[in-house]
């Protein structure tokens, strides 16, 4: 829809005519097919373009298995080892192959799959007698019953079994370690399956393991929608928008929370924590209060006068320098001159806190305000829908004739959404030319969004051409801002 509007109409029609006329050029035009595909945004032009596929659990399993098999055959290692290597090294197959070929042992030690040579112990030697006691349960077993990993720590099968039980119950799968003291060597799946007999637990292990693998895979993510079981696959994982075709929720691929362009994942997290956090209350207290210099009770200044009297100890003091008021009188402004006074330093801390609070509130108010506007415009959309219904009933045009109103409302939502997320971005930006440019573009977008909102609300008295023109401008502004500031 967006593409239809922003594309000059001539572009598309010319090309399609040419293609029908002359097959010779078809190939030439197909090379630039992005322009022709109306449903898909242009790769090169749309800063929000993101390619992803939605996978069912079985598809994702197949995908993982293919990657594991590919590594198995490249390195000639068993699947259980390949799986561990991939999981530990973020599924970077080429890197693993390269490192493995350079120094296989080094890679395995680094990955905590093998133990370092010098740290190798042989518990079988330290176990005494032909019927030694297991270091964990203290039961005696024949020497050959003991099992262990490459690190040499040996324990009885019952203890291994119990260890796996406890770990799986606690949700640990790929990260199960040897039971030895300070031993970090990981338990390979094959070893676990050879010991663990309970079929229910084996099932649970394999399910949890799959979850762990998907969560550790940079190109895959579980759809965070409620009760949604699909998995999103992105060839080039980025902090871009994903819309689940099943549960309809939209979110950022990289961090899984609400989509937040142009702000990046770390910044939006910081911002949301800041908004939720009570620390701003502390900041408020710091900005609006001082401690009485005599009895240290917390005092809020609620009037303009700087002559303060502590309500508790009745001490008269100056709000500016926190000195005794007696020394002020007629020479009031003297207090600002005592630079060596440590209270001036305190004062500057207060000023800083107050400034910080002011800045935060400035951005927060706007952020909140756009969030509220989005909610209100949701109501406008419902009103439009019912009005269209009424008009169609009264034979004033068909449903299709009025679609542009819905499109306008949807576009307004999209633009305002981006606008809302420009505020956290601006809050964390450093002062300078780039911020000036950002704020200029933000202001431009804001103006056009408000214009559009005005026209959508008065859709009936707005000319269709005028409205569509406004939509075009608003979307262009949004695109320009994203193109310049969305880091891809």
């Amino acid at each position, binding site marked *: 829809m967006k593409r239809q509007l922003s594309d000059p109409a001539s572009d598309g029609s010319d090309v399609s005519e040419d293609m029908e006329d002359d097959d010779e050029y078809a190939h030439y035009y197909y090379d630039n097919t992005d322009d022709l595909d109306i449903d898909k945004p242009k790769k090169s032009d749309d800063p929000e373009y993101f390619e992803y596929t939605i996978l069912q659990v079985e598809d994702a399993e197949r995908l993982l298995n293919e990657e594991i098999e590919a590594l198995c055959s490249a390195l000639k290692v068993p699947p259980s080892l390949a799986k561990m290597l991939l999981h530990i090294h973020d599924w970077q197959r080429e890197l693993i192959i390269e490192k493995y070929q350079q120094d296989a042992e080094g890679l395995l030690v680094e990955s905590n799959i093998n133990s370092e040579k010098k740290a190798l112990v042989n518990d079988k030697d330290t176990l005494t007698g032909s019927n030694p006691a297991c270091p964990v*349960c203290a039961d005696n077993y024949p020497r050959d019953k003991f099992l262990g990993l490459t690190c040499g720590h040996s*324990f009885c099968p019952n203890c291994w079994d*119990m*260890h796996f*039980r406890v770990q799986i119950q606690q949700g640990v799968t790929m990260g199960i370690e040897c039971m030895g*003291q300070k*031993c970090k060597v990981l338990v390979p799946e094959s070893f676990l399956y050879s010991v663990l007999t309970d079929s229910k637990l084996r099932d649970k292990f394999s399910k949890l393991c799959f979850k762990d693998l998907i969560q550790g895979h940079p190109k895959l993510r579980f759809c965070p929608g409620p009760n949604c079981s699909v998995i999103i696959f992105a060839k080039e994982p980025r902090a871009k928008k994903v819309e689940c075709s099943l549960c309809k929720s939209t979110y950022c691929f990289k961090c899984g929370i609400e989509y937040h362009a142009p702000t990046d994942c770390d910044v939006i997290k910081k911002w949301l924590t800041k908004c939720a956090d009570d620390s701003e209350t502390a900041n408020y207290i710091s900005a609006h209060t001082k401690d009485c210099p005599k009895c240290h009770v917390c005092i809020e200044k609620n009037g303009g006068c700087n002559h303060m009297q502590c309500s508790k100890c009745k001490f008269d003091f100056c709000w500016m320098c926190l000195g005794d008021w007696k020394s002020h009188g007629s020479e009031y402004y003297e207090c600002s001159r005592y630079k060596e006074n440590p209270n001036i330093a305190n004062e500057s801390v207060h000023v800083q806190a107050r400034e910080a609070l002011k800045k935060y509130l400035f951005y927060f108010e706007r952020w909140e305000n756009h969030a509220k506007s989005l909610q209100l415009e949701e109501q406008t959309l419902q009103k439009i829908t019912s009005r269209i219904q009424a008009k169609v009933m009264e034979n004033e045009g068909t449903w299709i004739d009025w679609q542009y109103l819905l499109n306008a409302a949807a576009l307004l939502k999209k633009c305002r959404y981006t606008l809302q997320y420009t505020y956290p971005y601006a809050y964390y930006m450093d002062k300078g030319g780039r911020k000036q440019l950002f704020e200029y573009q933000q202001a431009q977008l804001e103006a056009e969004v408000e214009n559009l909102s005005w026209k959508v609300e008065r859709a009936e008295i707005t000319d269709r051409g005028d409205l569509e023109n406004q939509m075009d401008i608003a979307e262009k502004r949004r695109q320009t801002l994203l193109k310049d500031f969305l880091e891809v």
Partner: protein
Amino acid sequence: MANIAEQRIRREFKEVVKSDEVAACNIKVELVNDTYTHLRGEIMGPPDTPYEGGRFQLEIKIPETYPFNPPLVKFLTKIWHPNISSVTGAICLDILKDQWAAAMTLRTVLLSLQALLAAAEPDDPQDAVVAQQYKEHPEIFRRTALHWTSVFAKGPKKDKELEDKVASLINMGFEEHQARVALSTNQWDLTRAAEYCLS
């Protein structure tokens, strides 16, 4: 499961009781009841620390899944340390959480706790107030920890000045422990401590 836990504790008991550390009065474990699920530990404050000469009592609870899960340990003796809550005695130590291994024993736990007393980790605090003092006023921290050791853990070194300050707050009508906590928290500033008690 509980069977393994009991068997292990029985054996560990022998281990700790026999070991050299016990001979040197460094660490001690005793039963509280005869179920082997609830034990009482004791460690000596390590030398060259403000805890030197103090005896610190620990509560040790053995979970059913021991030794596959760590024992639950906390200080019964009040202590001033960044990684130990001055209120509840809860301990922040990796081997009591995710770094536990089934091959570890009560002996390793007690020795690790002793090592923790000797080397605090203020960046991973359990008690934020103490940790802040440790970083910003190391000398006051040392004196406070020493004072707590002498009061609660039978430590040998008394600090007359600090005791006088506690006494003067008590004279103002505050309860002893409240007074001590208020002073410790407020870098031993009497006026601020009194304020703290009132708020």
